[in-house]
């Protein structure tokens, strides 16, 4: 079937609308509808990836109009991979979410599923599209849904965090839109490949330079790259956990993808690394981001906040890798999109299970958790190892490529920052493990025998299965990272 | 297009924009914001973007202002700056 590319995006949108219907007519239907939509999307994404791997990039012309005039989907190896990541994670998350949605959202689950699907639609659309303006519209869909979701979580502080997120998000999207405007005035086109061809004659133009800066700043704001990260910790830590589990792994990663796409496809490597010369400055900024995220994470007393700062640090990895401007760094960054999405997802699945039982993830609450929720914690530990970068989990291998890239460029500060960040993550997570492994101090007083086997109070089975599956996939992806690099990333880069 | 019209409207636009954010009453802000939108709409109409102007007239000067007033009705018109 030729329509798989568009089906990836249309299926969740359709599911969102039908779930919106169902919310008013028969609310129980919303969940299966949403699940079905995302399943179709995942399947289509898988098919597309296979097609792209074996038969080369796919172009899909919307409404049958040829590209510069109409909007086209242009799916190559990179976005095929990202599409599968996004749809797969969104589907798995929904699979695990039935109980927690009922617990957290309560009386309006139908609308929640609808908006969830819209969010996923936005992310998928951003990834699939080959049109600069279409990208903007879809970014706005993801943003609007995230504003709503963030405010849904914490009843008290959610709305304020969300409003601040709105301000920053709008600035980011508007900068991007301005950048597109500057590109348009210079080239007269909105199609990425078309723009790229025309741009080759304008490398010296101040308009193009401004367009590039604006696009980058816009995307950086959206991905929370240091020092434009201020919105992220609050927005993430107050949103409902079901949403958190999908926004934390996907949002920033999709924005990294957008950055790579703009850099490779639209502006071109020659322009960025030969004509312009601030790649070094960006790498230094990324280095600072990595260290800053780690240090701030050390200061947190809440698991969600801590993870939010780790995400900021991880963004530094990928931005730095991309701006390294060599094949190794780029490979590392792209591989890290996959790996970071998976491991962030896994770690937040663990957090979700804990929240389902405990309601709160302040460190003071976590004592004795290994005894109470052994399976959840097993998944959490694997994910944490991956974030620290311990082989054979996948996080190690992308870090490997990133450090190699840094060596090749001679950016030793970046390599050192990566190592330090690994160490900081080790400290962070082992602190958590320690708290969870040892019985909490309050229990010490109450219980006489602290070593008595605690009662097991696990999360629902559906959540555990997904969490286990994703955590194991971290190892599998890690072991097959050579295959992934050879099949997807290297053919894309060369 | 006759450029003085353009210039006059532009001046009004900027005047309304500044006024909307400095005035110390949110209801006044709402109305000035409506005026700003309407001026903007005029400007676009002058530039030949009739569709956009139409939309701005119905949205910016119309519905947005209503939302604005509704929100002020439910919150407060007090502002410190």
């Amino acid at each position, binding site marked *: 079937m030729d329509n798989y590319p568009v089906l990836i995006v249309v299926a969740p949108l359709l599911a969102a609308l039908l779930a919106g219907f169902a919310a008013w007519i028969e609310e129980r239907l919303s969940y299966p509808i949403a699940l079905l939509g995302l399943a179709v999307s995942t399947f289509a994404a898988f098919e597309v990836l296979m097609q792209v791997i074996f038969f080369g990039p796919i172009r899909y012309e919307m409404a049958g109009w040829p590209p510069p005039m109409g909007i086209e989907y242009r799916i190559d190896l990179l976005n095929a991979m990202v599409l599968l990541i996004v749809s797969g994670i969104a589907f798995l998350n929904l699979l695990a979410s039935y109980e927690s949605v009922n617990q957290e959202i309560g009386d309006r689950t139908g609308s929640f599923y609808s908006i969830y699907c819209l969010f996923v639609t936005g992310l998928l659309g951003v990834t699939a599209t080959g049109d600069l303006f279409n990208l903007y519209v879809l970014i706005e869909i993801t943003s609007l849904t995230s504003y709503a979701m963030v405010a849904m979580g914490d009843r008290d502080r959610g709305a304020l965090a969300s409003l601040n997120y709105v301000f920053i998000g709008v600035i980011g999207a508007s900068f991007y839109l301005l950048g597109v405007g500057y590109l348009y005035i210079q080239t007269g086109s909105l199609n990425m490949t078309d723009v790229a061809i025309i741009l080759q004659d304008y490398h010296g133009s101040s308009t193009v330079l401004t367009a590039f800066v604006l696009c980058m700043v816009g995307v950086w704001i959206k991905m929370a790259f240091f020092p434009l990260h201020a919105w992220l910790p609050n927005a993430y830590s107050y949103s409902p956990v079901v949403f958190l589990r999908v926004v934390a792994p996907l949002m920033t990663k999709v924005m990294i993808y957008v950055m790579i796409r703009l850099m490779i496809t639209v502006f071109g490597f020659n322009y960025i690394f030969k004509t312009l010369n601030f790649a070094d400055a960006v790498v230094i900024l990324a280095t600072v981001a990595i260290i800053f995220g780690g240090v701030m994470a050390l200061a947190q007393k809440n698991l969600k906040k801590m993870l939010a700062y780790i995400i900021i640090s991880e963004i530094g990895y990928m931005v730095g890798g991309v701006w390294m401007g060599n094949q190794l760094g780029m490979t590392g960054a792209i591989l890290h999109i996959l790996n970071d999405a998976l491991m962030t997802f896994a770690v937040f699945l663990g957090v979700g299970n804990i929240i389902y039982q405990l309601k709160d993830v302040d460190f003071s609450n976590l004592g004795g958790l290994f005894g109470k929720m052994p399976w959840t914690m097993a998944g959490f530990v694997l994910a944490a190892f991956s974030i620290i*970068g311990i*082989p054979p989990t996948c996080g190690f291998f992308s870090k*490997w490529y990133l450090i190699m890239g840094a060596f090749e460029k001679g950016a030793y500060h970046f390599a050192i920052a990566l190592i330090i960040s690994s*160490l900081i993550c*080790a400290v962070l997570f082992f602190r958590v493990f320690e708290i969870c492994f040892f019985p909490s101090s309050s229990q010490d007083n109450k219980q006489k025998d602290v070593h008595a086997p605690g009662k097991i109070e696990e999360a629902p089975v559906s959540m555990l299965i997904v969490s286990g599956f994703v955590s194991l996939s971290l190892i599998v992806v890690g072991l097959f990272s*050579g295959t992934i690099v050879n099949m997807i990333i290297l053919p894309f880069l060369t | 297009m006759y450029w003085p019209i353009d210039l006059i409207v532009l001046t009004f636009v900027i005047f309304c924009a500044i006024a909307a954010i400095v005035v110390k009453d949110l209801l006044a802000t709402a109305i000035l914001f409506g005026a700003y939108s309407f001026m903007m709409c005029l400007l676009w109409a002058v530039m030949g973007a009739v569709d956009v102007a139409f939309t701005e007239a119905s949205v910016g000067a119309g519905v947005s202002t209503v939302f604005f007033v509704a929100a002020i009705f439910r919150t407060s018109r007090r502002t410190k700056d």
Partner: protein
Amino acid sequence: MQTIISIKPLLAVLVSLFVIPVLISSSGKPNVRESWIFVSGVIKFLIIFSMLPVILQGNQIVLTLFKISPGADIAFRVDALGMLFALVASSLYIITSIYSIGYMRGLNEHGQTRFVSFFALALTATIGAAFSANLLTLYLFYELLSLSTYPLVVHHQDAKSRASGRRYLTFILGTSIGLVLPAMIYCYHATGTLEFAPGGIFSGQLSKPSATVLLLMFVFGFAKSGIMPFHSWLPAAMVAPTPVSALLHAVAVVKVGVFSIIRVVTGIFGVDFLLSFNLGAWVATIASITIVVSSCIALTQDELKRRLAYSTIGQLSYIVLGVALLTPKGMTGGMLHIAMHAFGKITLFFCAGAIFVATGKKYISQMVGIGKAMPITMAAFFMGSLSIIGLPPTGGFISKWYLVLGTLEGDHMILLFVILTSSLLNAAYFMPIFYKAFFCTKEEAMFGAKIVEAPMMCVVPLVITALISFGLFFLPQPFLDLAGLAAKGFLGG
């Protein structure tokens, strides 16, 4: 020399991994669980043992699992050195598993299933490290071992074990991530491969200063070897239950550290390369300092397990020293010491544990006259300490003999002096224990004449290991041959 592709190394590694789910599922039935451990240990040993003849003929067994990137795969290769180490670890695992049954039940410890599961995991990692074909695989199993040991170290879940666990992780993870990882990636970046090759992987990419820095990063980075100043995790880790201290902190974990250093020195840098820059001296110096200092510290320790720990630190540096000599005899002696020290030291730890189980005593000052109460244990203790000091008729003598020959061969008189001095120090910190245990006046004795040996399950293993230590003096062949073979391989024919 032939290269044989076989799945056996993978099986040997995986046996104790696959037994973990079985252990967890039979957590309610201790006897079933314990028999599974025993069975898996025996199977593992048999698989490894079945590869011995092939290796002794000078062949290698290889298996590539996952291709990560060219020159850095997840792959196994069994050679003489790996075989030597795997043989020691897997045979001692069987004995330790018997011992731990007695120890854990004797003390009625909590969380026994968790304990045995992580123990099995740790052994998986140890064998994996022993069979690694390249630095990446080695690093993988090295980290796995660090992490799987953590729950064992903090097994008691009290404040003291928390502090020790922290120190353990800080040193082990900190050095491996902070030093080994960048050094490894730098090597790969410079050469495009991480395979252990007999002559090293460098061919003119490194200047002397950078080679020195890189070597020191590796040597200090593998902090499991207890090289000073990154040694203090080992005494801290003694809060763990004694089977852990015995197998992991006298054999598996620490020897993986030393083993990794040997691999890097011989396989990554290569003997010729190190000789050309005279880098062996650096390593030898560090090792010598560690030997002397740790022996002196051991003299001051009153807690028996801590004294053993400092003794271990010193003995590990013998191995490093032997390899750093870069001479055939020295290397043979160093590698042989892996086996000899293992059997001797594990005996001592078993004894310390048996004393704790039987009497609850931890401090040497409380053990006056214990020889009368626990004659078998203390006899084994004597045998073990002889082996560590390096006196006949024990295996320790042979390895130390080769070490001494090695120093003479390389004409390092200072190092010879170091070895001899530290042997004296060894004697100085072991002999008083033994002396006080048997030869004390009635007034001094803290124990009655009644015999209070530990349970059977504790005593039998320590007798076995003591006898093996003794037997190795007369029959060191398999280990000696393997070590000689390995040294020959590393020195290039």
